[in-house]
């Protein structure tokens, strides 16, 4: 009986210790733990937002309004939409209650000072809605297996998948270009006819990506490092992404 009581006290004290995290700083930022799965075709911004909302709801955060950090480009007289204009004002906190950025200026480094210092997006802080670190560069390699092959990667949860769709420039705005940086505004799962170099090119399906682990592309940008080989699910994997994206709570 006494032992039971002690265990009870222990349990209560644990609960008391962990509670402040979730009460003071509820989650308002995460990386999707899974992709939609159809390459760059997310069903437009609406489809991506719904994916954020769905994943948030599954972990008890459905009462907030979630938006995907994605830009769309000017097409057919429809104005461009900037990812940074979609996500509220901040501050934003991850699963652990850690602040990843104070505000939009801090998140994007709007001034030289802010940009040089950087925000708090690191491999340890860019967590999924379940609190998982996203497997990054050199975390897990199996001899004789190709971690650029979707058929392998989809059954290997620890293989590198650090690329995150954004379709955005480093300052969080849309690309003002005829070239594709958004898989045709998140509706395309197409590939180029033959694989050239990665990145944007004329008539080439492409999407701009950032890194959850801030490691790769020669710059480690969280939101705008480089382009891809195409927009199919298989093509995203060919540079170490699986089509995940960032979600922010607006309110």
């Amino acid at each position: 009986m006494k032992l039971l009581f002690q265990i009870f006290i222990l349990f209560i004290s644990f609960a008391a210790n962990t509670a402040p995290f979730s009460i003071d700083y509820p989650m308002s930022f995460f990386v999707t733990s899974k992709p939609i799965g159809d390459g760059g075709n997310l069903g437009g911004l609406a489809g991506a937002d719904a994916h954020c909302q769905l994943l948030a709801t599954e972990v008890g955060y459905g009462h907030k309004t979630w938006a995907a950090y994605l830009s769309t480009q000017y097409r057919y007289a429809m104005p461009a939409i900037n990812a940074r204009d979609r996500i509220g004002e901040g501050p934003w906190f991850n699963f652990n209650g850690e602040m990843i950025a104070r505000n939009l200026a801090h998140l994007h480094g709007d001034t030289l000072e802010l940009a040089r210092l950087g925000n708090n997006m690191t491999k340890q802080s860019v967590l999924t809605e379940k609190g998982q670190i996203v497997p990054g560069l050199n975390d897990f390699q199996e001899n004789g297996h190709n971690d650029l092959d979707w058929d392998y990667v989809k059954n290997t949860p620890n293989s590198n998948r650090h690329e995150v769709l954004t379709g955005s420039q480093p300052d969080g705005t849309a690309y003002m270009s005829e070239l594709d940086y958004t898989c045709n505004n998140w509706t395309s799962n197409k590939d180029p006819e033959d694989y050239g170099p990665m990145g944007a090119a004329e008539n080439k399906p492409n999407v701009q990506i950032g890194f959850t682990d801030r490691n790769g592309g020669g710059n480690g940008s969280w939101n705008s490092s480089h382009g891809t080989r195409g927009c199919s699910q298989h093509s995203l994997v060919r540079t170490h992404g699986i089509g995940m994206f960032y979600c922010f709570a607006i309110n």
Partner: protein
Amino acid sequence: MTQIRHLTFIFFALFYLCAYSQNNQIPDSENLPSSLMTFFVTSEPIGNGGDLGGLDGADAHCQRLAANVGQGHKTWVAYLSTQTRPGQPAINARDRIGDGPWYHPKERILDYLDRRLSRPLIKSQIHGDTLLEAQTGSNMSKEFALNEFGQIINGIGDPLPTMHAVLTGTHTDGNAININEDRTCNNWTSNSEGHAQYGHTDRTGNGNTSWNSAGTTTGCSQADFESHGGAGLFYCFAIEH
């Protein structure tokens, strides 16, 4: 006699087979240290807190550690600034290190796209000279900022002791910190009073991702550094290649 001959033949056959299969293994993709090496983090501190013997002492430490791994023929300097003091103008870390680009000690021969994965540091990128460069960032990462043996410096999430806080005495742009208050342990001569500005090799901690100006220590003793997740390590750059 023939039996012995047969045995020797079998022995040599086996020997060559072993050697052959070893040679045919996937080639080691890393040369340590790379002949391109022009950047590293010191594997060990000088050990006397912020007293490095001035810039000269720090440079000599870089040179000695580089020589230990066969890179002593290059001219090495510590990435450290000093502040303006009576009779001493400030010295900016970024002005001491040459023009680059700088490669780390681990030469990864080719990556999956047949490119050299260990891309170098570019001077304007590591200091964010333009807004776009500052926002996009550089190739400085935990896996780039290796010591002269090519080993990762223990950072957040790694086994203790954490050693990611690296002395710089420098502002994010690579210049000396232009204030009266100490940020250089009295121009790297104090192991007690004063403060040192430091960066993080793993670009993690203090709510920012700065490699060269993430925070300020509360003191200059070895223990002060350790309480900030550091050991008194610093960055070394080769001036000419």
